[in-house]
């Protein structure tokens, strides 16, 4: 068993039109820039994949990564908690023009829905959003005298994830707060594709320090000097080049 794949194009080859794609990261921390850009490359070359539903905490920043994916016209719907950033112009313009759908989910509920999807829990109750506009239409139930909102799991066809170290079994570690949604999305997708800073042999990660066990991972690709969304945006980068 070797889950390592040799190049980014192969890594993202499983994403097809209309799929739901989870993309890890919180802002720029843990955002799998190279995987996203490889997907844009495929779209520019072939016209596919398109009409994607993307699940991410945010809606992209500037003109790289998720923002570039949206700008390329590949995204039909976004499920996120906070579609604002330093430079959210790409999403904002499409949204205000009615050209992209938005499902707004409180951040903790988003995390728990993804974890539920990975854990085989089809629905759960949370106090979050009770009595607010974001609970409209959702079932409500009382437990021990307190009202709660019923939320459903979230699953995806593919998850694009950024981790730090991976082995050929797909065991992963992360770097600092880049763990965020990445570790959850690994659990909730039919195919989890991970870019790592380095691939080590099986046994190269202490089993005590594995954060994502390999069972949740299908493909691992090494991107040795991964770009950081924040650095790219501070340099006013635009993908795939001149806008």
């Amino acid at each position, binding site marked *: 068993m070797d889950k390592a794949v040799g190049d980014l194009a192969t890594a993202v080859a499983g994403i097809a039109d209309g799929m739901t794609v989870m993309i890890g990261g*919180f*802002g*720029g*921390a*843990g955002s799998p820039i190279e995987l996203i850009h490889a997907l844009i490359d495929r779209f520019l070359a072939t016209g596919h994949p398109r009409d994607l539903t993307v699940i991410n*905490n945010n*809606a992209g920043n500037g003109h790289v990564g998720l923002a570039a994916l949206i700008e390329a016209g590949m995204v039909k719907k976004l499920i996120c*908690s*906070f*579609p*604002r*950033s*330093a430079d*959210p112009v790409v*999403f*904002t313009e499409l*949204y*205000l023009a009615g050209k992209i759908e*938005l499902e*707004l*989910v*409180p*951040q*903790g*509920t*988003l*995390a*728990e829905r*993804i*974890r539920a999807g990975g854990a085989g829990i089809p629905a759960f109750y*949370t*106090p*979050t*959003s*009770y*009595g*607010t*506009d*974001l609970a409209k239409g959702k079932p409500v139930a009382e437990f021990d005298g307190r009202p709660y909102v019923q939320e459903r799991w979230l699953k995806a066809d593919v998850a694009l994830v950024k981790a730090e170290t991976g082995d050929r079994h797909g065991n992963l570690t*992360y*770097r*600092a*707060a*880049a*763990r*965020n*949604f*990445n*570790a*959850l999305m690994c659990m909730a997708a039919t195919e989890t594709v991970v870019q790592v800073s380095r691939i080590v042999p099986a046994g190269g990660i202490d089993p005590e320090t594995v*954060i994502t066990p390999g069972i949740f991972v299908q493909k691992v690709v090494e991107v040795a000097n991964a770009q*950081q*969304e*924040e*650095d790219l945006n501070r340099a006013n980068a635009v993908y795939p080049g001149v806008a």
Partner: protein
Amino acid sequence: MTLVLAIPKLTNNQIAWRAAQDIQDGAYVNLGIGFPEKVAQYQPPGREAIFHTENGILNFGEAPQQGEEDWDLINAGKKAVTLKPGSAFFHHADSFAMVRGGHLDVAILGAYEVAENGDLANWSTGPKGVPAVGGAMDLVHGAKRVAVITDHVTKDGKPKLLKRCTLPLTGVACVTRVYTSLAVIDIEGGHFVLREKLPSLSLEELQAVTGAELHVTGPVADLIVPEL
């Protein structure tokens, strides 16, 4: 009702200072993005609070020197932070387990409006533009104390403390204490209960810029804050 307040009021730094005085040694604290982040600067000497950020860090410290940022080490406001000894990383589900599960001692949040029944509106000013909620709706549930820091009135002088919120709610009956530019007010039994006010301000003056009745159930202390 657009009277402009002619009396002195606390600066944001001073409101943050006052809120910081109520954070006990060893408390686990989440500070909302923006204004509430200032509270961390005013921890009383000898007390050690542990700060939590939704994106998966416990016990982070202040911002690094410019140029030394690590953009994988950020807070919920996406600002670079540093680590203190005894920190921990975790994923978003564990992070919100801490929030929702009642493990935080206090969450300190900003507000557009607070109602006397504890309702809070701090995420949306209405249907215009792109809506964004982040962790606001989670933070109002679970923390043992949910405190708000805010100017007492809006920029054009309207009360932010109201009988009922008019803006979209963040949470129902969730706020337990409000630190404003004029007063410290608890929410108890569906009422605003005045605890402290600026000594230069009469109760009547304070009531005039408050959108619901201020109850006085015990001594009202002077709200005294250092120059900052």
